[in-house]
């Protein structure tokens, strides 16, 4: 028996992504939780602050906050499952022995990105219609959505790994995630308010920079720390 090199990172990560999406497609537990929560909140928001209930000058401020609240709490509802189900289902040991830790993290991060992008693609058009939320700079809005979701997915994935072995997973996930996710949420909300008011992309470029920096720091920290978190 001779030594073998560990599997290539990207190939192993894509295998984790494929496996999780296949399992999710067959059970639809996280998808149902994410989409049902998002739909219920959208209906409530549409009813409470529909197009006629807000003064036009208040819409960018209030709607930007509400939009990101819907995205944030939808993320909190379903994204912790990527690691929690491995521990609760007893499959974590098999995965630990088979896959390089970085590939597990990258694969789970990609799963959460797919889920969050899917639910955001569901939320945003409905939200814009239900609240008559007009965006002056769609390009800035789109960039903020992508970067905001990447940040939410990255921080949620790492936090999910941290709490997956704890007894009170749900409470701990919320306690750890909320302070960790406040900086990108504030930047995303502020940037969205600018995107609703200003047609010029450069007006919101500072918020884009904050989100790029946050995503970079969170991703780097997650990969640096994950090995210790996953194996202990």
């Amino acid at each position, binding site marked *: *028996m*001779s*030594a*073998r*090199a*560990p*599997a*290539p990172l990207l*190939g*192993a990560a*894509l*295998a*984790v992504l*494929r*496996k999780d999406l*296949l*399992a999710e497609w*067959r*059970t639809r537990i996280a998808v149902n939780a994410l989409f049902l929560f998002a739909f219920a909140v959208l209906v409530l928001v549409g009813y409470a602050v529909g197009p006629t209930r807000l003064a036009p000058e208040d819409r960018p401020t209030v709607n930007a906050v509400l939009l990101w609240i819907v995205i944030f709490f939808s993320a909190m509802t379903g994204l912790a499952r990527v690691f929690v189900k491995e521990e609760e*289902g*007893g*499959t974590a*040991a*098999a*995965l*630990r*022995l*088979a*896959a390089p830790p970085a*590939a597990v993290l990258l694969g789970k991060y990609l799963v959460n990105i797919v889920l969050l992008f899917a639910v955001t693609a569901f939320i945003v058009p409905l939200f814009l219609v239900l609240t008559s939320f007009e965006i002056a700079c769609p390009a800035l809005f789109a960039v903020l959505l992508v970067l905001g979701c990447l940040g939410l997915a990255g921080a949620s994935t790492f936090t999910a790994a941290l709490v997956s072995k704890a007894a009170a997973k749900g409470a701990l996930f919320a306690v750890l995630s909320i302070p960790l996710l406040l900086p990108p949420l504030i930047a995303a909300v502020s940037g969205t308010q600018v995107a609703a008011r200003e047609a010029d992309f450069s007006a919101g470029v500072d918020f884009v920079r904050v989100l790029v920096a946050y995503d970079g720091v969170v991703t780097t920290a997650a990969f640096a720390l994950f090995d210790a978190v996953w*194996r*202990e």
Partner: protein
Amino acid sequence: MRLVVDGLTRSYGARRIFGPLSFEVRGGTVLGVSGSNGSGKTTLLKTLSGLIRPSAGSTKILLEGEEGAGSGPRDVPWCIGWVAPDLALYGELTAEENLDFFERVRGRASSRAKDLLAGVGLPESSYSKKSLSSLSTGQRQRVKLAYATLHDPAVLFLDEPSSNLDADGVEVVARVVASQRSRGIAIIASNDPRDLALADETLSL
């Protein structure tokens, strides 16, 4: 190849589970680990395999042709096979999809899943288009044996391998252990005389 254990100890707080243990297992050897319930057999196997960290001491795996200090089990997880009652595979996937997944994460392109499943007594008709969770406990134990040997591990850890298996399944375990003997080391933790009969040496805890 060799597995070298030096002063290995595992404690939970002030309670010592086992150790300090020092021993060496050479390639081609099957080591049995016996002991009463709660004596630390499973904890020893998890520590040897790197799934949990020892409180003191070390385990080194020296692969064929490798000189020097050797590698800890956490440094060479692709050399380790693991079967245990609390190990689970993915219930939403079929047996074949499970094995395909574990091959892909190890960077292998060609699938040996069907051959390995046939080798543990599972013809394709018994698992095709069925999720793993819908198979019987004994069938799932056979799939676990296939999972553990999928990557030709140098060291195979078997915790109560014959549990939930019928007489034919116990023979499958014997075949898996015989095959492992030619490839490296097998360590079996059990109190079942059928499992311990496969061992060349026995360590009592």
